[in-house]
Every structure is written in structure tokens, then in C-alpha cells.
């Protein structure tokens, strides 16, 4: 049941109609337009199209929950069935944002319950979600089908139990990498015995007691996606899972257990081993059975040898993420190096997404990698020691990222690391014309670096910077830019409160928020978060968030 649009008189907007299509036809025509970018374009054509678009839109994507209010959203889009909301700045994942900062879903849910009773899908990222909110959700939307919580906090397995209990039509439950209070218990068993609709169940991160009979029943009905906590119990289930496409959550993978997976792997396209400390030989044996792999997440325990096996066995690989098993251990001498990276690039020419944590890298290796794989859209390299130069030449890593931006013309997302001067940012500004997201830490020499990026990257949407020598001149050089961006984050840089106030004054449609650290003097703006908003300053800001 969707809201009915009231017929408007042809002269209501004071202009003659461009076409004679009835509104309903235009809406039908626009219905299949799915991408929110396309829809935004459609809505700008003319008033008729704006209206047709807003009535026909069923999914809304809100990249920053504070850029718009729930009231504005529900007023503009009456027929929404699916909502994606993102909350906190990304650096909150790394403890740079104090708790209770905000991004609470509750106000949104309350309004949705009234305006979108037919809501079916909710996908949240970096939002605060309480158990009460989950219960409210479960009880308020009888058609609710899909819940995805990524990197959220504030809830416990009790909230999940409420979902399992009350959402009779649930098809997808995706709970990943959240800060959950895992009370274990049997939240899973809150799903009714006769539950058959669930297709996607991803709770890899929980230590919940798993009723394996129940899980096996679920699995046997899965056609496509599966994750599970203790796969060792599911041997028989796996034998029946020929259609498995994704597999993750393998905590306890041991050499004995992995062969159990082999029969299920031939159609695997996504394998998430990032919680399983595999050795290179185990990975190699497993990958021999996964010729169709497109996406692979591993721990660096597999080392370079393991990555060589990736290059040899997975020619279709498009995405690789290598996480550090022991990121804080200063004495570790294991992990992956530049040679593993290069090995993958020789074997996997279609690679376009990489997240790579390492302890050493060279400019030459990165240049080779992008020469082999020029189609990178996402290049996130984390050399784990700040300011670390090319370990062979002792030079800054400028040329590495220069090679990336020069060669990978489709680059959308870049994270830089290592010892970097302003030259890196000159390169980025000059060449990265499709860059949308840039993450910078412990890099740069002066304001000039940041200015190069702000001046040079026309598609920049998100810029997050920490611990760099960029100051007021850099911040203010972006005055004209920030409204075209989603957000800017600068922490532990050289920005002052006065500059932030100036920015706020000059740009009333930006929210300029500062969080100060204890023990810092009054003039410094320790953490700055700038974002465009049509709903004005936050009304729910906690005391430690200063809105300028």
C-alpha cells in the first residue's frame, strides 16, 4: 500500500508542462531507475520529473544521517520501502570518536513507523542501535524483510532475539563487525521452528550458542550465502552445499577441518578467512579448490607464500584484503611484504580492490602492482609503522602513490601510508580525477599538500585526515569545496578554533563540529568534522561536540 499522490493542477508550478504524460506514467517509467545518483539527476530535470521521481522512489540512501532530518526525508519520499543510513565518521571505527557521539537510529525509526509502515529493508552503518530500537523495529514493520548492521554499536544479542522472534518475513539478517554485547544464549533459537524464509544469515562475529540442527536446516535451504561460526560441526551440511557462493566466519579453521570445505568451494566467489589464522600451505590447498574466487579476505599469517598461491589459483580475483593478525606486536617479523603483493598482481590481473596491511613496502613494488593491475578502483595500502619510508631505498613512498594515481585512472578510493611528502598530494591532485574518498594519516609536509587535493580532485566526497601537518590555510582553502563533499575529518592536525569559526561563519550550510581533547589548549581544534547539511546544526549533539 503506497501513499497516493494528489493530483496537481497543471499550472501549479506556474509553467507549462513539457509533456502530456500523466503523472502515473512518468512514475512507472522512472520506477526501474535504481541508482540513487541517477535518481538525483532525474529529480533535477524539471518539477514534474522531481515529483515523479519522489513518488516512485522506493529506496533512499543517506550517506550521512545528519545531512538531512527524518522529517525532510519522509516528506519528500512518501513510498520508501528500503533505507540505507550511515552515521558516524569513519574514524570512529578506530576509537577516534568518543562514545555517545550520536547517530542514534531511534528517531528515524519512530518516524518511519508512521510514514513507512511498509518498510522492508534497513541497512545501517556506524549507527547507534539499542535493543529497544531493535524491538521497536521488529514490532512496527510487519513486512520487514532485511536487516543489515555493519560497524554499529549499542545493542546486544537480546535485540537480535527480538528480531528473530517478531520478524516473520525475515529474509536477510546481516550482522557484521558490530560492537555488540554478546550475551550468547540462544538468540538464534528465537527463530520459529518453521522458519523457512531466511536466505542470508551472517552473524560471523558472535559467540552465540548455535543449535546445529537448526543451523543445518537453515543451511540446507540456503541457495546462495552462508556464514557460520563453527563450521566444524557442519560437515554434512557442506556436502550438500554445492551452490555456496560466499563463505565466511571461520574462526576455528584448522588443517584438519579445511578439507571439509572443499566440496563446497567450486562455485565460491567470496571467501572470508580474515578471522582464521591460516598458514600458507593450508591456504594454498584450499585455494586449489576455489577457481572462481572473486573476493578473498585473509590474515597475514598466510604470508607471502600464501599470496603466491592466490596469484596461482585465482585468476578471476577482483578483491583482496589482507588483515594483520598481530597489528600491535612490535616484535613480530611475520606477515606479508611487498613481494606477496607483487605476486598477487602477476596472477590476478583483474584485481581492482585491495586492502593491504604490511610492515614493509617499496615504491618499485607498488609501481609493478599497478602496472599489472591498472584497473584499481579502491587502493588502500597500510604500512603499519607511521612515517616508514621505502625500506630498500629509504626514500619517501611518494612515487608509489604517484604510480597509483597516474596509472589507475578509475581510482575512486585511496588510502595512503608510509613516509609521504607533499609530492604525494601533488600527484593526487593532478592525476586522481575520479577520486571520491581519500584517507590520510601521518603524511604530508605542509598546507600545500592538502591544498593540492582540494584544488585538484573534482569528485572528492570524503576526505579524512589524521596526524598531518595541515593547518588553517589548508582548511580554509576548501571553503568553496566542502558543500560539494559529504564530509571532511581532520584530527590531530594544526587547525585552530578560530579558523573553524571562520569556516562556519562563511559557510552556513556546513556543520562545523569540533571535539577537543583534554589537556589541549583552548585555541586548538583537535578533531574537526565538517559536513554539509540541509537540516542545520545537530539538535542532539552531546556536550563534547562543539557546533560552531
Amino acid at each position, binding site marked *: 500500500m503506497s501513499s497516493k499522490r494528489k493530483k496537481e493542477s497543471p499550472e501549479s508550478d506556474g509553467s507549462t508542462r513539457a509533456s502530456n504524460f500523466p503523472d502515473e506514467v512518468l512514475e512507472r517509467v522512472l520506477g526501474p531507475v535504481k541508482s540513487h545518483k541517477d535518481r538525483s539527476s532525474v529529480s533535477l530535470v524539471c518539477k514534474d520529473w522531481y515529483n515523479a521521481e519522489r513518488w516512485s522512489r522506493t529506496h533512499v540512501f543517506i550517506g550521512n544521517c545528519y545531512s538531512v532530518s527524518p522529517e525532510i526525508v519522509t516528506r519528500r519520499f512518501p513510498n520508501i520501502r528500503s533505507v540505507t543510513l550511515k552515521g558516524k565518521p569513519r*574514524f570512529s571505527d578506530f576509537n577516534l570518536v*568518543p562514545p555517545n557521539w550520536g547517530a542514534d537510529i531511534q528517531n528515524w525509526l519512530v518516524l518511519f513507523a508512521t510514514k513507512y509502515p511498509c518498510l522492508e529493508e534497513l541497512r545501517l552503518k556506524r549507527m547507534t542501535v539499542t535493543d529497544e530500537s531493535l524491538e521497536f523495529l521488529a514490532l512496527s514493520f510487519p513486512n520487514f524483510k532485511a536487516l543489515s548492521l555493519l560497524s554499529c554499536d549499542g545493542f546486544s544479542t537480546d535485540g537480535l532475539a527480538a528480531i528473530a522472534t517478531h520478524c516473520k518475513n525475515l529474509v536477510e539478517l546481516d550482522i557484521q563487525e558490530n560492537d555488540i554485547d554478546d550475551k550468547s544464549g540462544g538468540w538464534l533459537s528465537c527463530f520459529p521452528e518453521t522458519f523457512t524464509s531466511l536466505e542470508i544469515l551472517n552473524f560471523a562475529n558472535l*559467540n552465540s550458542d548455535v543449535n546445529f540442527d537448526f543451523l543445518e536446516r537453515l543451511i540446507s535451504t540456503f541457495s546462495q550465502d552462508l556464514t557460520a561460526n563453527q563450521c566444524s560441526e557442519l560437515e554434512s551440511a557442506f556436502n550438500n552445499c554445492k551452490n555456496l557462493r560466499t563463505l565466511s566466519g571461520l574462526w576455528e579453521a584448522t588443517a584438519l577441518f579445511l578439507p571439509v570445505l572443499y566440496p563446497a568451494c567450486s562455485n565460491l566467489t567470496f571467501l572470508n578467512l580474515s*578471522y582464521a589464522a591460516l598458514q600458507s600451505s593450508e591456504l594454498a590447498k584450499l585455494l586449489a579448490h576455489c577457481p572462481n574466487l572473486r573476493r578473498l579476505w585473509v590474515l597475514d599469517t598466510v604470508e607471502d607464500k600464501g599470496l603466491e598461491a592466490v596469484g596461482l589459483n585465482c585468476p578471476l580475483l577482483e578483491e583482496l584484503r589482507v588483515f594483520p593478525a598481530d597489528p600491535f606486536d612490535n616484535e613480530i617479523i611475520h606477515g606479508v611484504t611487498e613481494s606477496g603483493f607483487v605476486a598477487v598482481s602477476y596472477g590476478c590481473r583483474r584485481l581492482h580492490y585491495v586492502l593491504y596491511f604490511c610492515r614493509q613496502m617499496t615504491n618499485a613494488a607498488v609501481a609493478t602492482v599497478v602496472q599489472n593491475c591498472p584497473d584499481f578502483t579502491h587502493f588502500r595500502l597500510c604500512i603499519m609503522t607511521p612515517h616508514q619510508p621505502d625500506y630498500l631505498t629509504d626514500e*619517501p613512498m611518494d612515487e608509489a602513490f604517484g604510480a597509483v594515481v597516474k596509472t589507475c585512472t578509475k581510482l575512486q578510493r585511496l588510502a595512503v601510508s608510509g613516509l609521504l611528502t*607533499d*609530492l604525494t598530494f601533488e600527484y593526487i591532485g593532478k592525476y586522481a580525477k575520479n577520486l571520491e574518498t581519500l584517507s590520510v594519516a601521518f603524511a604530508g609536509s605542509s598546507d600545500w599538500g592538502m591544498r593540492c587535493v582540494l584544488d585538484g580532485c573534482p569528485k572528492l566526497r570524503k576526505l579524512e585526515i589524521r596526524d598531518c601537518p595541515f593547518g588553517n590555510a589548508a582548511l580554509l582553502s576548501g571553503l568553496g569545496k566542502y558543500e560539494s563533499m559529504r564530509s571532511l575529518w581532520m584530527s590531530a592536525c594544526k587547525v585552530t578554533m578560530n579558523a573553524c569559526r571562520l569556516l562556519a561563519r562563511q559557510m552556513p550550510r556546513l556543520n562545523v563540529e569540533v571535539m577537543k581533547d583534554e*589537556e589541549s589548549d583552548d585555541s586548538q581544534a583537535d578533531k574537526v568534522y565538517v559536513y554539509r547539511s540541509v537540516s542545520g546544526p545537530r539538535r542532539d549533539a552531546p556536550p563534547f561536540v562543539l557546533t560552531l
Partner: protein
Amino acid sequence: MSMPLEHDYIGFSESVPSMEISGRSSERSSTGSRLNLKATELRLGLPGSESPERDEDDCGVEDKNGFQLGVLKCLVSGAKRGFSDAIDGAAGKWVYSGSGGSETELGKSGNLFSPRAINAGKTLAGSECNNQPKGVAVATVEDGIPQSPKPLHEKKPQVSAPAAKAQVVGWPPIRSFRKNSMASHPPKTDDDAEKMGSGCLYIKVSMDGAPYLRKVDLKTCGSYMDLSSALEKMFGCFTIGQCGSPGAPSRDGLSESRLMDLLHGSEYVLTYEDKDCDWMLVGDVPWEMFTETCRRLRIMKSSEAIGLAPRAMEKCKSRN
């Protein structure tokens, strides 16, 4: 392009190219630097010499290395003061190995007397990562401390060397969830390295109040005696035992009981976490059994170990 000015740890290039201490420090203080480094440093010193408002000329040896580490603003006051408190309390109990042992260790790793490190102990309330040494108390040796004759500036910390590394909040950028998961499901390499045939059995050792974890290879220790010498080498500068305990002050010929004697009645006890995640006193079981069940070691302050009996079921959460 010219090489950048040397950066301090958090990426600020100092306007003064040379890293001479006095020049820079006075520049810092004269400009009333917002970094307010002094107030946020933790310093290792004799009791009473640890006041945050230290004088410029007390700059320690580390500055000779030109490795001025800046200080993150989110520095702690709380969590890692414990370290200097421990030293404070142990005023009379400082044991320097005097001769080669601990110096060699120092010389090798430079760990214990690194230049001023960022104290990143201030954890925002919320997820505690059990396995992560959160903060690194500054271990700058002031001149007043009786120290080994080996000059500290021989250790040359490089930016890229792990020796001088301290922990920074939120770095490397890994989600708390993932950090916590790895903590509760430690990578196999720790425990099962033996099964993998690599021939080492590295066990993490933490000492209450010490700034970093160390690792000891149980395979290279054949007995509790070897273990205690190894630990003493690693942590000797913080003291494992006081030589004033009844009996000979000599540390030669340590036996199991001697280790226990040393620990007994001193500031610290040696405990380990077994495969059932229970914390036990070291020394109760035969060595072979110990190596099979020990997951990690902790040199715990005696005051915290009260009630920790052999085979006790009390769980001691790692303070990391």
C-alpha cells in the same frame, strides 16, 4: 623534491631542522605549544623526580637521537600512570642487573629505554582490546637514576624500527571488533607453532606496569630456571624480585624455589594463563606440563594476586 624535515612521531615537522634538544624544547615552551608535551609525558624517574613540569635541561638522552616524539593530544593521564606508580612504589627495590644482562637486552632491542614515546593509553570508554598493550609509558631515563654504564644513546631508534615504536590510538586502522576478535581467538601461531613444526613456542609475557609485552620462547627454556633467567633479562630493569629477600642476594644458580622466593614477598608474582583461561601461579606443575598448558605469562603485582592460589579459578583479566 628534497627530503622532508624529520617528522616527529605524529607527523608534525618541526620548523627547526636540527633536532637539538635545547633549541627545540625551549622553542616549544616559548611558543606555549599547544602540544603541551611536558605535561602529558610520562617519565621514568626516581620517586619525586617525575613531576610533569620538568625542566628543559632534564631532557633525556633520547633527544640526542633526534627522535623527538610528539605527543598525541589524546594522551592519557589515567591508565598508564600505573607504570610510574609502580616504579615509585618500588623505590627501594630497583634492581639493575649491573652487568651485562639487561644492558645487552637494552642494547639489542632498545625497548626499555626508548625515546619519549607517545602514551596512547587513553582509551576512549568502550571497547577494551584485551590483547593490545594500549599505552606505552614513557621510559625516559633521567640522569639521576643509577643506570648501567652503557650509554643509552648507542641505541639508535629508527623511525621504521619496531624498537622505538609506541602505540597510537586508532592505529593501525583496524576496527575494534576485529581487534577484540583476534584477542579472544589468538592466531594459531602463538599456541600451535609447535605443531606446525616451526620449533618455537612463543608466549607473551606482560608485566604489570611495564610498557610493553615481550615474548619468550618456551622451547628455548628447558626448565623454570631458564624461564626465570629469561624473564629477568627482559624485565630486570623493572625488577622481578628484590634481592633483599631472605637468603643470599646472589642471583646465581636460580632454582625453581629461588624464583618463587624472589617473587615471594616482592612486588610481583609470576602467573600464567592456561588453556582453560584460568590464571595460575607458575611453578606448581612439572615443566613439561607447564609448556603444554601455558598460554601467556603475566608478572602480576602481588597485591593483585591475593587470593590467587594454585589451581585457583579466579580469572584475572589482562590489563591490556
